[in-house]
């Protein structure tokens, strides 16, 4: 990065309602040129509507959509330099793979010889050269996916929109396609806006992730930022696997500890903006809990469940009616038995402290 980045796409205060249903609520974000930008959130949260607004299929009620500095808010679809891969792939079922690829170029009135050259080049790149005369319904899911991708790339779009493109594929293919998409992104320097409900996809591919909730963006940041400093409970709960442990309690009088059912949890710093006695929550990642070392004082707990996941083991411990999950290397978890007593240490420097009323992080 370092050099000055062009803004490829900019949405400012975009709102859209369908009758009483508010699909998008004051949506604002910028995507720098060449960036892999992820819209992340559960289904029907407004991801698809956002993509359709960028493509021009949806005209927003309010707000502004700019693509490379030009206002496209109320402009027609054509000419945006935006292409889109639909969740359903949306291949033209009556056309062959060749004709599917050629379609956008025919509509752009590209010369026949040039169309033929680019179709064959795209087919070769996506390893579809042997299937070029087949109709979409005779192709496998992965092949259909690649046709959809090829049809979007063949126009050499400035911005590529991907709407849950991997949802309809099986696990193995999904893994392969993630790598393939990252490779294409690097190869073409494309600006990509990628919508997904899958945390793994978001974190592994996104350079920048916008976490969405009820048609609005909750937080935008790099995967690290979202993981290290979630702005509220919603983001904290969505990012990170296994999920963050959440402990309820009330703030101590000095604002430097949380009184909980498992005892007082002292903070590493004094909170400035909180009131004594206020209901609050402490979140701590499973990686930030460890067993107490020799002579160290920890919370007394008992081991409730072990979930071996290969190189790591998720250990659930119970303390004062609260279940905490921790992630240990497989070697450290060896020999543990459910029911066995243990002492655990929660790293205060890694606490995420949230206000119970709003779910917002407390500064």
């Amino acid at each position, binding site marked *: 990065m370092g050099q000055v980045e062009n803004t490829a796409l900019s949405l400012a205060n975009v709102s859209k309602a369908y009758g009483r249903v508010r699909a998008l609520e004051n949506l604002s974000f910028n995507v720098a040129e060449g960036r892999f930008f992820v819209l992340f959130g559960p289904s029907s949260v407004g991801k698809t509507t956002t993509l359709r607004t960028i493509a021009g*299929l949806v005209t927003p009620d309010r707000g502004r959509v700019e693509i490379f500095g030009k206002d496209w808010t109320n402009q027609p*679809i*054509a000419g945006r330099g935006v*292409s889109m891969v639909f969740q359903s792939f949306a291949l*033209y079922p*009556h056309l062959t793979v060749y004709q599917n690829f050629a379609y956008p170029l025919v*509509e752009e009135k590209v010369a026949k010889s040039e169309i033929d050259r680019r179709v064959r080049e795209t087919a070769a790149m996506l390893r579809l050269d042997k299937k070029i005369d087949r109709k979409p319904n005779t192709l496998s899911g992965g092949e259909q996916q690649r046709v959809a991708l090829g*049809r979007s790339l063949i126009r050499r779009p400035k911005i590529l929109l991907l709407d849950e493109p991997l949802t309809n594929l099986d696990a193995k293919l999904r893994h392969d396609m993630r790598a393939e998409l990252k490779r294409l992104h690097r190869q073409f320097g494309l600006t990509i806006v990628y919508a997904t409900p899958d945390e793994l996809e978001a974190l592994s591919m996104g350079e920048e992730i916008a976490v969405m909730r009820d048609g609005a963006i909750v937080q935008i940041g790099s995967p690290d930022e979202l993981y290290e400093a979630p702005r509220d409970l919603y983001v904290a709960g969505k990012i990170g696997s296994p999920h963050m442990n959440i402990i309820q309690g009330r703030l101590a009088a000095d604002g430097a500890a949380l009184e909980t059912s498992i005892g007082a949890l002292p903070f590493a710093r004094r909170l400035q903006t909180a009131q004594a006695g206020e209901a609050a929550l402490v979140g701590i990642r499973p990686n930030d809990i460890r067993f107490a070392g020799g002579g160290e004082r920890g919370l007394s707990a008992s081991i409730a469940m072990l979930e071996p996941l290969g190189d790591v083991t998720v250990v659930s411990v119970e303390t004062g009616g609260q279940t905490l999950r921790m992630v240990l290397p497989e070697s450290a978890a060896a020999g543990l038995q459910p029911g066995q007593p243990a002492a655990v240490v929660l790293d205060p420097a890694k606490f995420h402290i949230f206000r119970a009323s709003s779910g917002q992080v407390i500064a």
Partner: protein
Amino acid sequence: MASGVSFWERIGFRSGGGVGDAGWGRTLGVAIVSLIYFLPVLFIIFTAFKPQELALSVPPTLSPTSFFGLIPDQFVFSPTLENFGSVFSRVMTAGGAPEATGFDRFFFNSIVIATVSVLLALVLGTLASYGFSRYPLKGNDTYLFIILTTRMLPAIVVVIPIILMFRAVGLAGSYTGIILLYTAFNLAFTIWMMKSFFDELSTDVEDAARIDGSSETKVFLKICLPQVVAGLAATFVFGLILTWNEFLFALLLTGPDTRTVPVAMNQAVASGGRGTDWTLLAAIETLFLIPVFLVTFFLQDHLLRGVTFGTVKK
């Protein structure tokens, strides 16, 4: 006609004896039931080839050949083409010379009127149903219901006002009149049929075309229409059969020049006071079957997909 099915396969001769997974038992069962259904049609076709005196013979003659003596002589007739000649030209008055009956004209009328009105309804109805499906109005369902009600009343109920209206504007007896009437009647059916086909299409595919740079016209012509070819074929054939067979309106609203075959058929056998000429009637009916048979035959692949469309969840 997209598939590579040969002529012989098309008419039922499939490799492997054509039995497939069903087995001989079931195939035989279906064959027997089909034969029972087809028997009246077969009887009419045979009657068309019989000499006049054998038309109502008891026991009926059932076969044009004795199959090398397998069938007893009293069931066998010797086929003749005389009846087909009589359709177009025959002796009308005792001792007179053969006169032209005008049936060439009536067949021409039937073909032109049915084809034009069904095609017209197909064009208008497809456009209308695309509109109803993609750009619903306030009260869309009400409009669709009103359109359907035009087909709910029996023809006999509305025929008098229609005759009066046609007379008033001078459409009675003209090609334009009967074609417009049939178009209007086919339109309701076409709109309902085609709307269900358009409803089944994925709108994502259309949006993909919009993003690929297609105008709304091109989305309709290049994306939607090719996907409903089976529906167009099915609607065309059903509409054609309904119109081809229509009798009541044709009887009351066509003139001597625009008369269609069903009306002429009735008049050919009912006039003259010599009793019904059954073999002549059978010959007209046999000729009358041919166009419908041909159209159904050539569109059968699309037709099957058309009538089973939407019954299987993708």
